[in-house]
């Protein structure tokens, strides 16, 4: 019964009525059965991992003096790290994200980013958030401070759809700020070429960041239901194109599916995780995909 109630609550249109992103995030996370996952990086926590020989330059605080007393050798004690991963959430707020009904892509993306932020802080990871369209509008550097989640949610609450998209420029400007290795999660409708996407993400991957892309889409843009000739106006450029419904039901769908496939392939090439999220999908699937992604990276 609890699961069923939780699943119902995870539907986007239900979440939209909750209003507060904090409440939405808690609802989603609590609705999904979660387990703690291991950090892919070793740190200095309570859970023991292994011993290794002391090398010059190691911090003497981590020398196991009991072993030294018994064996007269110096060993450094290593632990399984849990809270020392930096998670940076990149949210696309371009004008095209404003499309979708009854829940727009931006709304769904906000729910998702809030949920991921909440999960991140629940695991005591550092949380960073960046909001971009043609350029980076806001950036909160990864932080493990207790108020990191609150600040991130406050930023998300005041986020609205902007103008165009330039993911290459936006990520280039962020690259300098993300010196610490960690997870970079991009939430966008990815209206960009696959090559451009590779060019934007590859430097991050090379810098040791683990990448995950959440491709947010509305069913109406995947399979438009228009049945009459219409003038479709681009939300970002204001260009108007008169389109025959026959094309929308044929050629357009093929083109769009090819675009999605290209994006997915590009992600695979740079080792990034790709997850498609529809505005009509409950968020538990996306959250579980994220957790699986963390698990994989943890191994």
């Amino acid at each position, binding site marked *: 019964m609890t699961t069923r109630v939780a699943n119902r609550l995870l539907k986007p249109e239900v979440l939209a009525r909750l209003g507060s992103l904090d409440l939405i995030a808690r609802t989603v996370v609590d609705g999904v059965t979660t387990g703690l996952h291991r950090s892919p990086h070793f740190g200095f926590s309570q859970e023991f991992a292994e011993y290794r020989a002391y090398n010059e330059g190691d911090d003497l605080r981590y020398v196991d003096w009991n072993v030294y007393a018994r064996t007269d050798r110096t060993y450094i004690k290593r632990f399984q790290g849990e809270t020392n991963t930096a998670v940076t959430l990149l949210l696309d707020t371009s004008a095209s994200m404003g499309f979708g009904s009854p829940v727009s892509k931006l709304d769904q993306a906000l729910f998702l980013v809030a949920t991921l932020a909440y999960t991140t802080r629940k695991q005591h990871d550092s949380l960073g958030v960046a909001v971009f369209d043609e350029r980076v509008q806001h950036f909160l550097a990864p932080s493990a401070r207790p108020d990191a989640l609150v600040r991130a949610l406050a930023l998300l609450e005041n986020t609205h759809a902007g103008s165009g998209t330039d993911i290459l420029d936006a990520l280039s400007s962020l690259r300098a700020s993300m010196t610490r290795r960690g997870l970079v999660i991009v939430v966008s409708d990815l209206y960009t070429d696959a090559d451009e996407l590779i060019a934007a993400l590859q430097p991050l991957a090379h810098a040791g960041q683990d990448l995950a892309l959440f491709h947010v889409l509305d069913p109406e843009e995947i399979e438009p239901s228009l049945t009459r000739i219409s003038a*479709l106006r681009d*939300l970002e450029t204001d260009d108007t*194109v008169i389109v025959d419904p026959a094309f929308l039901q044929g050629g357009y769908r093929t083109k769009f599916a090819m675009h999605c496939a290209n994006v997915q392939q590009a992600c695979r090439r740079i080792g990034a995780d790709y997850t498609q999220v529809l505005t009509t999908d409950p968020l538990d699937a996306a959250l579980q995909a994220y957790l699986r992604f963390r698990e994989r990276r943890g191994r």
Partner: protein
Amino acid sequence: MSLLFPLYFLGMLGLGLPWLLHRFSDQQPEEKLFPSTRFLDATTPPVSRKRRLKYLSLLALRVLSLVLLCFLFAQPWFARQDQAVPARQHHIVAIDQSMSMRATQRWDSAVDQTQALLDELPSTDSVALFGFDNTVRQVASSDDQPGAIGRALSSMQPGYSSADYGRVMQLLNTRAAEHELPVKLWLVTDQQRSSLPAQLNALYAPQVNEFELVSVIEQPQFNVHLAAAAQTEDGVNLRVSVQLTASQSMDSADSNAAADESAPATQAQPGANDESVSVTEQAAREVTISVTSADQLLTQRTTLIAPGNLETVIFDELILPAGENPVLRVALQQQDALAIDNAVELVVTQANPTPVQLLQSDRDTSANAAVFVTTALETDDYASVSVVTGNSEQVPPDTAHIVTGRDLSADPLALDVLQFVDAGNNALVFDSRLSRSNDAAARAPREVGLVDQTHPLALGDIDWFGIRFYDVPPLSLIDNDRILLETTEREPILIERQVERGRLLILNDRLDGRGSNLPLQPAFVSLMHALLNYFDASTALPTSMLVGERLTLPANVQVLGPDEEPLLTLDASGRSGSLQLLQPGLYTIIGLRGEHVLRVILDTNESDLTTLDERVTRAWQARYDDVTVPDTGSGSLKLPAIDKRLLAQGNDNNRLSLWQWLLPALIMILILESWLANRRLDVRRDGS
């Protein structure tokens, strides 16, 4: 095919609307937002032949529906194929039986013309013969035995009543509505101007399809109507007043000429005197009036009178002939067109004031009140007032009216007065209480406020200006009290209290000249006379009535007609009822109070033989014809063309209206259009 309302074809201008809608829709596809046009290929709106046909069929349906709508409003009709066969008609032939038809040759002409008319009617048509004056009577119809109409026509005679064309037309309209066949009305009449209704619209009978006015006027006729009254004040000297009214009719030729001459120049009111007088003005004629009694000539005088004039002749040097209730005969010596109104018989009436008893039973009654009431009632010898001390049981047995002062705050009001009134008598009760305060005059005076003008007392005719009420005594009203007069502060002054029989009026004033100035004003005399008239009307029998009127009779009376034959059966005379007086002359009413002579006189208007103006008759006739009628000045006789067309469509069996077929066709087309427009969502009803 003909159209009843071709102007509705202007609606065809709306045909451009669907064309514009369809054209507009092709040029302006609906704009919608889309996240990105990156993967969209611009498309020229496909203009395939199939799609054009689909739009055109929808457009054609819409245009067709508009055309049908216009046709439906225009109401097309066809003449039936069997139009060559004359349709059956119902004919109503109505003959004027009013008194004016007694004028020389009029009745004979009416009978001859009616007979000729009946002979010419198709044998397939049905006919009903009516007589009329101010009402209509069916005399015979073709449904009766063969020859019944002819026999009925020969037995018809003119009466003494006056005609009323408006009432007659409406009554005949009701009769015409009873027939499914088209009705043609023939009105055989002398076209008397005095018979026209006040509202000329009453002449229009919408149920009558055709109308023809048949005139019986063949030559100009001159007539003098004589009315007279005789009175004696002292029982010796006699005064006879004679009133002569002259009129002259025009024949058809004269009236046509008159109409043709005056029509373009004048827009005068139809029926106005100056029209006929201007063309028929003739020299005054000499008439001799004689007054006789028991075949003995008392006096005679000759005077001149011209048509359209009123002449009054007074004989005041006569001595009342000997004998009880002498009857005088006043007659014209010369013959004129209408002999029946040339002589009248008169009963000499003595000017006896009405007896009124003034009861002084209450010691509180102001002494001034008796003086004021007596003075007002006896002004012009209107009444003779006798003062009686005591209550109403002390008044003489034949007393019908009393005036008394009582304490109006008593409940019930004085019982003896109520008993007196319940016996069928009348009473005026005024307030007898003394003034409550000496400084009454210091109070703000109130004037007369609401006056009940619908009451027979006709209080609205009295000039209440200057009447002031300073101290109106409080008065408790009971249910059904009718306030006839009150002050501006709604204090009741004159009240009529409902009683079983008789009449009881309450005057809420002490009549002392202090509480109000009412008894000091001339209006008080008028009020007292009006009250007395009102009282008298409930008990007195009339002395003169118009022929044709109904006389209301109490029980246990007998009425002798002018020929001294009893008019009531034994059974009818035992109960109250009414009697219509159909003949002029002297009637004698014999009852418990003795004999009463009632004079039934002829209607002066009916003796006026002036005929209708030709323009009025043409306009009257034209309401049923499809001709343009010149404005007669009243404007009311013009029938709107739309009414005539509707009338024609509703009743003319020779016309085949198409709306029965057009309406279902329109509905089918609209359903088809709706189905086609909604079958595919891209072809919507708005054409987009």
